[in-house]
């Protein structure tokens, strides 16, 4: 069944969209990731214009994170004060990101920027995850004692001014590092159409030293507002949010996530991580090849005769 998307102005198979939503939903349920970093490149590949894919994906992330945030708020696993600080950084970052996005769109370089960001982040994160889970599997096979996690010394961070007490996290640190983390994630949300959880969660644990139990809830809290803000910016400056596309992806995604969560429980954590790492590297490789190999058509046509 073909469906015409009013904003993307292309006709796509509705079941393909539901299926993609479902597939990414299953993966995000299994691995506990947002899935934006997989969905946006997949949307490029089925012919959705990159600008529409990025803006619509931001909209979808808001919705798919919504029930998660509510659950975490109920369990009181959200550090609201930390969330607000991250959010302030995130909003500034998203505003900057959309500006950069629009300038590069005018120059015809937005596809390049988005794809380069993807190759870079997916490559680094996929490789790190792959190495880490390989090591974990090797260690569990050797049955040796679990290595002590060495936490980084945060000497330079203690020297920064504007310290605030974050009671839920049990931290007394400067607001500057969380602001910077938030800012960075906000830029990524606007440019890549991702929630940024895959950057923020490690940063919160290793850089800010937050306890693991509040990390997911707090990052979801930040993500939902930042992506909502990015959605509004894209909708008002580029008119690229496609409501129909978002709803189709979402319905597939929510159902997929429920299935994925049940599969995830039955699998071992190391196996899951290695699978996720391989998948991330595969998407990264595909995008990298597009940039490195000579395209069959060197010319491209964009609407709007500027720049």
């Amino acid at each position, binding site marked *: 069944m073909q*469906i015409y998307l009013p904003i993307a102005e292309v006709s796509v198979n509705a079941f393909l969209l539901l299926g993609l939503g479902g597939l990414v939903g299953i993966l995000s349920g299994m691995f506990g990731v947002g899935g934006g970093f997989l969905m946006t490149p997949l949307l490029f590949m089925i012919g959705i214009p990159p600008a529409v894919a990025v803006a619509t994906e931001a909209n979808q992330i808001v919705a798919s994170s919504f029930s998660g945030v509510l659950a975490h708020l109920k369990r009181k696993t959200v550090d609201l004060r930390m969330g607000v600080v991250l959010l302030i950084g995130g909003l500034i970052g998203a505003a900057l990101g959309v500006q950069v996005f629009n300038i590069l769109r005018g120059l015809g370089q937005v596809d390049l920027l988005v794809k380069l960001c993807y190759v870079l982040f997916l490559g680094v994160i996929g490789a790190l995850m792959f190495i880490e889970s390989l090591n974990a599997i090797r260690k569990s096979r050797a049955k040796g004692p679990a290595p002590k996690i060495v936490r980084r010394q945060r000497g330079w961070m203690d020297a920064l001014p504007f310290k605030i007490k974050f009671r839920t996290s049990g931290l007394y640190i400067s607001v500057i590092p969380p602001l910077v983390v938030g800012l960075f994630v906000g830029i990524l949300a606007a440019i890549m159409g991702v929630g940024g959880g895959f950057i923020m969660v490690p940063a919160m644990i290793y850089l800010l030293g937050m306890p693991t139990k509040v990390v997911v809830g707090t990052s979801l809290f930040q993500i939902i507002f930042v992506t909502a803000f990015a959605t509004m910016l894209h909708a008002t400056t580029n008119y690229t949010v496609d409501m129909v596309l978002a709803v189709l992806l979402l319905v597939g995604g929510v159902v997929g996530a429920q299935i994925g969560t049940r599969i995830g429980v039955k699998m071992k954590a190391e196996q899951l991580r290695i699978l996720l790492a391989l998948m991330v590297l595969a998407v990264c490789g595909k995008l990298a090849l597009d940039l490195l190999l000579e395209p069959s058509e060197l010319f491209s046509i964009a609407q709007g005769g500027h720049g």
Partner: protein
Amino acid sequence: MTRLVALLAVFLLSIWPVTAEEIVADLSQDRISISTNFDGSEILIFGAIKRDQPQPVGTRMAVIITVTGPREDVTIRRKERRLGIWVNTDSVDVAGAPSFYAVASSIPLAQALSPEADDQWHISTARALRGPGMGTMSDDEPEFLDALIRVNTTAGLYGSAEGSVAVRDATLFSTTVALPSDLVEGSYATRIFLTRDGEVIDSFATSIYVQKIGMERWIYNLAHEQPVVYGLLSLFIAIAAGWSAAAVFRFVRF
């Protein structure tokens, strides 16, 4: 006297072809609505050649039909390898390139149309691009012009179908033009030409209107006219849809 008759004969001969044959044509539909299930459309263009007297013998007749989509400004960009990756470098802006162009003819276009007539009427794809609506495309960028035609032909937006106009008894003609699913809204100018030995004898023009309707129209208008309301509505609908899909799933599961 004989000179007068001869003059009259020459005069009549020169104007006869213009008035003796006339195109009468119609479309299967002159309005195309883009609704949710729109997946491209085919329009049938048909008609007849009306004659006051038997058709001239010894000349080659042809029917050419063109459909031109709304003109829009586009930027054509060329990729080059920079630091190992392929990036957009040069670009050319084109004002008023047709978003869609189809030309169908009863015999190969080169035989149906003389270059002079093509210059005058802008019929072949390359000529139509340089038509009066075309702005800054200059002759020093032929590579970009070729690319525009090539990319749009691959995308199914430009195309010439030689021999696709069926002519019966040198009088009735018909053809179908396929419109792709990614149509630009607006008026699609449809022209029909009757040529003899490459010269245009008569032409006929009409329009097809392409418009989004129903929900598609409403969503598109809202997004462009009230983007803030649209953005908030998108967020609300997406949250509501995600919420209810999860609720339904929980209900089914347990």
